[in-house]
Every structure is written in structure tokens, then in C-alpha cells.
């Protein structure tokens, strides 16, 4: 009754509000104290200059949602007239996505290209944010048993496929693995204490799946930008352009999603980190901006080495110039359109790393004014809406920060290849090189191979570049083995080996494998192209790296199987 009369008064009051609102004018106010939503957004850009004019750009975005009660069962209690959720700048489709499949943590990685660790050193973020070439997915799912976890996984995949315009739905039970030694892979990435409490009888399942060499292009970037409250229109994200990103030597886009609970307040929120990294070559990118179509350099601009043979018709070009200067807008094609104003406490940051300040200069351009700092770090904090651009110049491009270069050396090099050229047999060889002359490294070798690549685990042969190591020594280097054999058409082969790589040594593992004939329908449309085999994951577990594990992915493989003559049925004359 009270409600009804209240409503009556409300309806009647419209007229009063509309006609007598003279005194009621403070409708919009600027008051920072009012903005106490617990959601937040932060962004930063690291530009890392590497030897031989390579430049790694790392965009990092952090989003936090408002408090959201996680489990629907407790949310929709029967005695409530209503339920309430709020999202301030946080994408609202994340919560139903995770809730419908009971997912607590999700790591999603889109990577394209091969990281050349000899040239570029360590991977950004110790390799955690990038996957093998293609797409890779890790997910912590709450379920009663493995079957339910699988069901949840397929539901998650079908939703992600739509959301990210990618073929996630092809990551089915033939490709999923359940990592055994969870701690090695997600240490520090998931805090067990902050996960929501389990429903009775349920447990957590960490699941991993990937699609090797899945094509990644502009339509995959759009959903990432859509998740950001800046929508790629303002702030650092306005620099991101699909053409530049996917034209790079190596690129990686990743999303880390975590459910974080505070047990005192019995409320949970989502943490989302979006990392976008890509590698370009500065002179080549600049040249490309200058000459979008590949034409030869005009004669008047040609710099010839006169110490070599030099005639009217012959010219040996001089090596690239040691000095150059550029604005990043020349490389990215855009300048930064205003800073992000969606966080009152944290401003957008840009850092230029890896350079020797004696030979390099950086400055930020705000409204045609150049401002520089000694530490090459910039905070975008102009009150008025402005356009920003970053200026970088060098007098000797070979002079880089030696300390950073040293720290950037990777702890391990890995390569993996297929051997043999027979159509029914072959081999798999993985080579680990420990470049350090002072310490051994312990690694986790995580391999997932499709069921149609029948590896004879028993035929494993270990060899080493160190001839002093005996057979038994070599055998003892593998300290722990976990093997889950493949099942035809239902389970991949899953290996997890813990291996010690002695200092300054190259260790090679080799196994024989058999290539079966598949059923007619199991061949892809381009069967003669071969089957893409996903990257193996190698985790360097070492206390020397501040207990931060370092993640490396081997290159993908292309397995060619005996292929039937698909045209045969059509060649039969009636």
C-alpha cells in the first residue's frame, strides 16, 4: 500500500518537478568525491629500443570491475525482489561469459610470428603474456568432474569464438590438456586465497588448449579495443592501428582475467589485464611510411659506398645511417589523442627503455611544444584536451643501455623440429641450449601432440654437446616425467618433463614417431598443406630469475601426412 501511494505521488510529482524546478538546478556537478566507484582503468606504453634498430612496443591496460557477487546461485535468492549489478567502464559481457561456464580465471593469447631470442633477447613480461604462434587459452574452471569441466569449456569456447571472431570452437577434447604441475605455469598469476569459495563437491580444473598458426588479423584487435573504456579512440590505445600491428615481425595480444574475492566483505570483482606487444624495425617502418609501395630509391637519394666499385651503373649502398630521429606517429600512423581521463589517480604513462641517454634523446610533443625528461619517462597530464606525440632521436643507434641489454639475455634457447621425410615414420627433435656459463637451469618441458602424431615415448634418446656426460648422467638430467598417452580421436599426447640443462650445454631429445592414415573426412580442405602442430611450452624454473618463471614457446611444426587422392571419386567415368 505504501508503495502504491508513493508511486502515485511520484507520478503526480512529475508535473511539479517539471514546472517548479527553478531551484533544482545542480543536476550535474564536478565533484571528485562523488566518484567512488571501485572500478578503475590504467594504461601505459613501454617502448623498448633493441639492438639493430628493433623496437618493441608494449601497451598495457589494466581494468578492474566494480564489486560483483560471482556465483549466480547466491545471487538469485528467492526472497529478493530484485538484484543489482553495476559496471563503470568495465565490459559488461565478461560477467555472463565467465558465469555461464563457471570460469574463474582466463588467459587468452593471440600471437603471430616467431620470437627470435638471439636477436631480441627476453620476451616481454617474461613470456607469460605471449603464447605460441596462433591462439592459446588457459582457463581455471570450477566443476564437479572432468566431464562437466569439458562441457563448460566447450560452452566457453563457443562464446569466445563469437566474441573474438576466432575459431576457438575447434579447441575440442582432441586438443585439451589438464596441466599436472599447475604451480609451475601460473605461479603468481592466480592467488588461490582470493579465488571464490567452491560450491560443495566441486573442484577447480586448470585446462589448456591452443590452435597452431590460427590466422590473426584486424578483426581480432577490434574486440580488444572494444573492451577498453577508451574504445581505441582516445588515450594510448588511439595509437593502435591494425595495419601497423599486424605488419610487424612479431606481435602478441593477450587478456588475463582473474576473479578476485575479498572474504571479509564477501564480494568479488574481476581484474583484467590487456597486453599488446609488437616488434618492428625502425628504419624499415619509417621507409615504409615514406614509400608505401616498394619502389627503388631514387638515384639522387642513393648513398653509394665509393670505396667499392662505383660507376654510373653500379653502386654498393652504404650501410644504414647511425643517426636518425622520428616521431612515433610516423611509425604508428596516429598520434595520441588526449590522455585517458577515466582514472583520476593514475595518468597515462609512456617510457622509453633500453637507450643510452648520452646518445639518445626523447621528448614529448604537446600542442606543438616539445618537452623532454632525463629518465625518458612521461606522464600525460595536460589539463586541456591535447594531442601528444613522442619524439625519439639518436646520434649513434648502436649505443644502448648495457645493463639492460645484459639483463635482457634469455636464460634458454629452444628449437624443435621434425626429422625424416617418410610418409609413415619420422622423428621429433627438441634442442635446449643454456647460454649461461655459470649456472644450470631447471626447465619444465610441456608438450601436447595430436593423436595422429604417434610418438614412441620409449624411443627417447638424449644427447648432449658435453661429451663428458655419460648415458646415465644424461638420463638423470630428466628428473621428473609425466606422460598421458593419446587416445585416438579423443585425447592428445601430453608430456611434462622436468629437465636440468647444465651450464653452457646443448641438450637434444629425440623420439621416433609414426604417421597414420586418417579417415577421409578428417583431412582439412587443404590437406596437402599439412597439419599445424602447436608450440611446446618450456618454463624455466629458476630461483635466479627472482622466482619469476620464464616462459618460452617453440616454433610450431608442419606435419605432412600421407594424403589420399581426393580427386579420385570424380575421375571415375560413369
Amino acid at each position: 500500500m505504501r508503495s502504491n501511494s508513493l508511486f502515485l505521488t511520484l507520478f503526480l510529482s512529475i508535473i511539479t518537478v517539471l514546472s517548479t524546478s527553478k531551484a533544482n538546478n545542480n543536476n550535474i556537478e564536478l565533484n571528485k568525491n562523488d566518484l567512488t566507484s571501485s572500478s578503475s582503468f590504467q594504461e601505459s606504453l613501454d617502448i623498448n629500443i633493441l639492438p639493430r634498430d628493433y623496437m618493441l612496443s608494449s601497451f598495457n591496460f589494466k581494468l578492474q570491475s566494480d564489486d560483483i557477487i560471482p556465483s549466480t546461485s547466491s545471487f538469485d535468492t528467492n526472497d529478493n525482489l530484485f538484484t543489482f549489478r553495476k559496471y563503470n567502464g568495465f565490459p559488461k559481457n565478461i560477467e555472463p561469459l565467465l558465469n555461464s561456464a563457471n570460469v574463474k580465471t582466463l588467459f587468452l593469447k593471440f600471437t603471430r610470428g616467431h620470437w627470435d631470442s638471439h636477436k631480441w633477447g627476453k620476451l616481454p613480461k617474461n613470456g607469460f603474456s605471449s603464447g605460441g604462434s596462433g591462439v592459446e587459452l588457459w582457463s581455471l574452471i570450477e566443476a564437479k568432474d572432468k566431464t562437466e569441466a569439458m562441457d563448460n569449456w566447450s560452452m566457453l569456447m563457443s562464446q569466445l569464438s563469437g566474441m573474438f571472431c576466432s575459431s576457438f570452437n575447434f579447441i575440442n577434447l582432441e586438443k585439451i590438456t589438464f596441466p599436472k604441475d599447475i604451480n609451475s605455469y601460473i605461479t603468481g598469476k592466480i592467488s588461490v586465497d582470493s579465488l571464490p569459495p567452491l560450491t560443495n563437491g566441486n573442484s577447480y580444473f586448470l585446462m589448456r588448449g591452443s590452435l597452431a598458426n590460427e590466422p590473426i588479423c584486424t578483426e581480432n584487435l577490434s574486440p580488444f579495443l572494444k573492451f577498453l573504456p577508451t574504445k581505441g579512440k582516445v588515450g594510448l590505445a588511439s595509437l593502435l592501428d591494425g595495419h601497423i600491428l599486424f605488419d610487424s615481425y612479431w606481435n602478441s595480444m593477450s587478456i588475463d582475467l582473474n576473479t578476485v574475492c575479498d572474504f571479509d566483505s564477501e564480494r568479488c570483482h574481476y581484474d583484467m589485464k590487456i597486453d599488446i606487444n609488437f616488434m618492428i624495425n625502425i628504419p624499415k617502418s619509417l621507409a615504409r611510411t615514406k614509400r608505401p609501395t616498394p619502389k627503388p630509391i631514387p638515384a639522387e637519394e642513393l648513398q653509394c659506398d665509393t670505396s667499392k666499385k662505383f660507376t654510373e651503373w653500379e653502386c654498393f649502398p652504404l650501410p644504414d645511417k647511425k643517426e636518425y630521429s622520428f616521431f612515433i606517429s610516423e611509425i604508428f600512423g596516429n598520434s595520441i589523442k588526449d590522455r585517458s581521463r577515466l582514472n583520476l589517480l593514475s595518468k597515462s604513462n609512456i617510457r622509453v627503455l633500453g637507450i643510452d641517454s648520452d646518445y639518445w634523446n626523447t621528448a614529448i610533443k604537446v600542442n606543438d611544444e616539445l618537452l623532454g625528461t632525463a629518465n625518458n619517462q612521461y606522464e600525460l597530464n595536460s589539463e586541456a584536451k591535447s594531442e601528444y606525440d613522442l619524439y625519439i632521436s639518436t646520434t649513434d643507434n648502436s649505443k644502448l643501455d648495457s645493463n639492460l641489454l645484459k639483463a635482457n639475455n634469455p636464460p634458454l634457447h629452444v628449437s624443435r623440429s621434425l626429422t625424416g621425410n617418410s610418409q609413415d615414420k619420422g622423428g621429433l627433435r627438441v634442442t635446449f641450449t643454456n647460454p649461461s656459463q655459470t649456472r644450470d637451469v631447471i626447465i619444465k618441458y610441456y608438450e601436447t601432440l595430436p593423436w595422429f602424431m604417434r610418438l614412441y615415448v620409449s624411443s627417447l634418446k638424449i644427447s648432449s654437446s658435453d661429451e663428458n656426460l655419460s648415458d646415465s648422467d644424461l638420463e638423470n638430467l630428466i628428473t621428473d616425467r609425466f606422460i598421458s598417452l593419446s587416445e585416438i580421436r579423443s585425447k592428445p599426447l601430453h608430456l611434462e618433463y622436468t629437465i636440468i640443462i647444465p651450464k653452457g650445454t646443448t641438450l637434444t631429445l629425440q623420439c621416433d614417431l609414426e604417421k597414420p592414415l586418417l579417415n577421409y573426412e578428417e583431412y582439412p580442405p587443404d590437406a596437402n598443406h599439412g597439419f599445424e602442430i602447436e608450440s611446446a611450452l618450456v618454463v624455466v624454473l629458476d630461483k635466479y630469475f627472482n622466482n619469476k618463471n620464464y616462459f618460452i614457446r617453440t616454433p610450431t611444426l608442419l606435419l605432412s601426412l600421407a594424403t589420399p587422392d581426393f580427386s579420385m571419386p570424380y575421375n571415375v567415368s560413369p
Partner: protein
Amino acid sequence: MAFLDSVKRNFLYRENLSLRRKASLSVLLIYFFIGLPVWYHLTKIDQYELDPLMDSEKLKTPYLFKENNPKEESDFLKEINLKIPNLSLRRKASLSVLLIYFFIGLPVWYHLTKIDQYELDPLMDSEKLKTPYLFKENNPKEESDFLKEINLKIPVNLNLTNTFYKFPDLLNSTQRELDGLLGRYKDEYGFNSLNLSIELRDVGNTPAEWFYENNEYLVQLQHDSYMGNYIYLYEKLEVVVQYDDRSVYENVLPTLVANSILNHFFFEKIDVANEFDRRLNLEKNVVGLKYTPKIKLVLNLIINDNLLADWDLKDFYQSKVMQEVLLPFMEMFEGVYKFEIESNILYNEDLNLKDWAGAADEIDDLQSQLDISRLSDRAFVDNIEDRVLNFVVVFPENENLGVKNSNNSIEETKDDDDDDVIISSNKFLSYNLPEWGSVFIYKGLLSKLEEGKDLDSVYLKDSILEPLFITFLKEIFPILASSKKEEGGEQVVFSITKFIKKAILSNIYRTNKNIKAVYDMIYKLPVVTDESLNGLIPEEYQPYLQEFMNKFFPSLSIPQKIHSQLVEVISQRDILLEKLNTMGNTNDKFKQYLKESFSFYKLSEETFFDHEMVMGNYKSLKHIIAVYLPLLGPVCSITIGGVIQLLKKTKKDPLIEKKEEKIKKEQ
């Protein structure tokens, strides 16, 4: 553990010793110690001692051992004492197999292979009687036919205490009058199908407030100098009948009260027809009504700028808009709907209105420009229980949008104060999308709100939100209560109580349709025969065959689950129909009936859309056994037979046994 490790290392991974050498050695050993003895045993000639046997044979058949044998046949016959056996063992065995086949095999085979066709005929036969309109061949008036089958009893309370005169028989006479009028209306106007009966009750000592709070129908009598009546339909359901002395003297009060009840609470004039034509308001649009118990209110604040924003919904439980506008609104629908509120703030988004060059008055122009699809980024379609209504406040930062007043905008308010005045409600253009929600478009520019100062953040206070929300709720009320738009402002309680009853009827109607759909699926879908078999039948007989198949074989097998669900749905529906026709229903009970009706409607949906049955590939466990039985049978019979034979077989050869016995005797 160490042993296991070594076994693993040496045999599973075989790195230590060459496996080939080990394997060869083990093969050799197996050959010598197992293979050779087995080979010897298997290949040795079975040379049993036959001499004693033959000696006794010579005595039994001497004619065969005779040197010259002229009368062999007669000699043989001499030795025979003929005794004809009853039946040969072979014939016995065959007979037993046959018997087993007939008495066990056939019933088992029949039981396993017969299609899981739960008997739906009795159920459907009774359904044909209950809902004949659905089973009619040509079906022109489905809705009115459906309503004819429904008996609805609604109580109306008459307050006879504290009246000017005492009316001891007014209740009964008015009830008689009501019954008579209801019958007459039905006959005369012909539009009404529902079997409505109104149960008049004496209020007794219950205070009028109780009826107001519980939204019950109440009739008050008021002595006056003239006859007439007036009604309250907004916050309570009350009709006040004014009577004078003359009306009491002429005994027209029962007619007056009955007419007031019917014409105000239950019947309304038909717009197009004659003034005297009346129609039951409960019958209007029952079929089109689609009740969903969950309502999702999505409240969006959209800012096409790089500004941190928030609104007064941020702390839900302290927000004035929530407490004073939304909460009372939701409380009115308590027991009818459950609400899910989602507050979203989106940045750098304009719903495609940024470059809208059109005049703000042009609704058609706006309709083509506005892109609401950007707000619905859910990957999955919501289930049948959900219904989404949207409230959108958008700041498109469009310079073309002047602050022109138009019919669509909220009325002009004047800003007298020069302080922090930034926005007033007149600067919003409101636009409603039927069944979707309301969009409020800000016509100014946030960036030009304050000269020389850049905005850092925007905060929408409740004073601006309140009128917008009230406009929004006025828009969605007719959707939620399935009423006319104008009723939202005048007849709130009346609309909701009416809606509850209509929603119950609609759920029953939809359930009936689903039951019929299951029936159609099972009995009306053509039975498809294997085409290769069709070739065996002459073409002219094929249509007859089709007819025959459809008549005798239902097209879908019915899992037990579907059958039991169907039984459950029908029984629940019948119980509810009974309840609707009983005395003493209250508004709270009707709310309960609404829940019940939706639950069986949902069950009927699940029954109809059972994935396996719809796909026609329902296969019970019995079928799987039946398929594998031919394979299982021979294998099992051989195995079991072999085992029995093995157990029965004596360990020693009978001849050897005999010989041993003989040797013993000799000793």
C-alpha cells in the same frame, strides 16, 4: 617404489640396455621353457592301450572276428537285443533350443526392439475433450473457444457494516442479480466467452485498509440524496455506490450495486461498437500476452567523451532515485515479477548519434540513425524467463543538436540560477522504442558546459535522473502490465490485478498449445519409410502405404521422461483450473497461481522442445541392447557352454580310467 622406477626405466623407456637384446633373450627362454613342453604335449600321438578293449569286443561281436563269414547279417542280428530309445539326443537338443527361442527369445526380442512408445492415447483422448478447439480441423475462433472452457471465480467484497440502513438480504439479492446480469451479458453481447462468476462476500469486521493493501475488490455503500457511484482504481480497488431513500424503497439497490461492480471492475465498453455493448476486460488480448517472470532493467549512461562519469545509482541503497522511484515501482509488481537491474556506464560511445545532422524533431530520422545494437553485446540469447527493458541516457556530443523544444522532449524548465547550472531536463530529447525501452539524448555539449575549464568528471544527480526515470517507468508500465498506455497513470492497481489473471489464462493457453504440439509431432508427422523398400511396392499403392504407416505407427518414439512430464503438466493444469473455479480466492492466491501456471508452462516447453525427441533420434538403452544382442548372444553361448563343458569333463580319459581299474583288479 625403487623397483617400480627401475622397471619403468628399463622396460617403459628402455634407455639402459638395448631392449632388442633383452627381448630376444626373453623370447628364447619362453621358447625353451614354455614353448617346447607345450609343443611336445600337443604333437605326441595319442597311443592308448586297445588290447583289453578289443578282447572284450571279440567276445561281444564274434561274427566279425570269424575267419570265414557266410552269415554275417544274421549273426549280427543275433547279438542285438533291440530297444528303441525315446528320442535321440540331437533331437532333444534341437527341441530345447527351439523352445528357448520361442518362450524366452521371442518375448525378449519383442520387448527389446519395440519402439518406446508410451501410451499417450488415453491422455490425448481426454485432452480432446478438455480442449476440443485445438483438435478441430478448421479453427477460426481459437481464443474465444479457449476461454469458453475456463471457469473463473473472482471474489468481490461488499461492506455492509456501518451502513445508514441495515440490509440483511442485500448480499444474497445482489449475488442473484450479479449472476443474472452475467448470464444476460453473455447472451446479449455475445463477445464474452469466459465463464466468469463473481463471488460476493461480506466484509464483516475486517477493516477496509486490509482490502486496500491486498488489492482486493471492495464495494462501499454511501447514503446520499441521489443515486450514483465513483471508483478508485489507482492505488486500491474500490467502488462507492451512492444510494438514496427512493432506491431503497423501490428495491433497486441490488441492481445498482451489481451494475456498478460489473461495469467498473469487469466489463468495459467496446470502442467500436454500440454504447451498450460490453466486453469482459479479462478477455482482451489473452492469447497475445507472453508472461515472463524475470525482468531485466538495463540502465545505461553513455558518454561520448573521455570523461569519468557516474550517476546517483552508484550506491544503490542510498540513491534517492532508487529508493523513491524504482523501488516503489518494483514493489507494486511484487509476486508478479523479479527484477534484475544492471547499471552500465559506457565511454566513448555515441550510439551513432555523433554525426547525426537531422533535426531533433524528426523521429523517423532518429530511428534510422540510432544504433541500439551496440548496447546488446551478449553472446547468448536470453532464455524464455528473461525480458530486457532498457533505459539509456546518452551524451552524444553532437554539435548539430540544438536546444530546440519539441513535442518529444521533456518540457522546458528555465534556469534562473547562474551557479553551477549545467544541465536541466529540458535538454534531453526522449525517444521510446516499443518493447525495448527509452533513450534520452542530451542535446548540448558537455565540453561547452563551462567556459575556460575542462571537465574532469561528470556526475548525474538524482534531481536530473528522477524525471527521466519517471518517464521511463511510465513507458514500461503498460508493457509490464500489458495494459493500455493511459492506464499506467490512472489505474495502476487495477491494471496489475487484471494482468495477473490474464497472465494465468495466457499460461494455460500456451500450455494447451504445447500439449497439442507434442500430439501433432507424434501423430501427425508423416512416417518416413526407407526409400529402398519403397521400390518393392508398386507405385500406385505407395500413398496407401503412407496412410497405413501414419495410422498405425507414431512417427516419434516417446521417452519415458516426456511421458511423465506430459502427465505432470496436464495434472498440474487441471488442478489449477479447479482452483480458479473454487471459492475464496484472494489476490495473493492469484499471484501463487501465476507462479504455478508459469512453472507448468515451462515444463510443457521443455517437453515439447526435448532435443532428442525433436531430432527424432531418441534411442533407449533397450535399443542399444537389442542392437548388440546378436553379437553378444553367440559369443556368450559359446563361452558359457565351453565353461560348463569344461567343468563337467572328467580329468582323466575314461579308457585310461578303465584300464587302471582293470590293473588294480588284476593285482
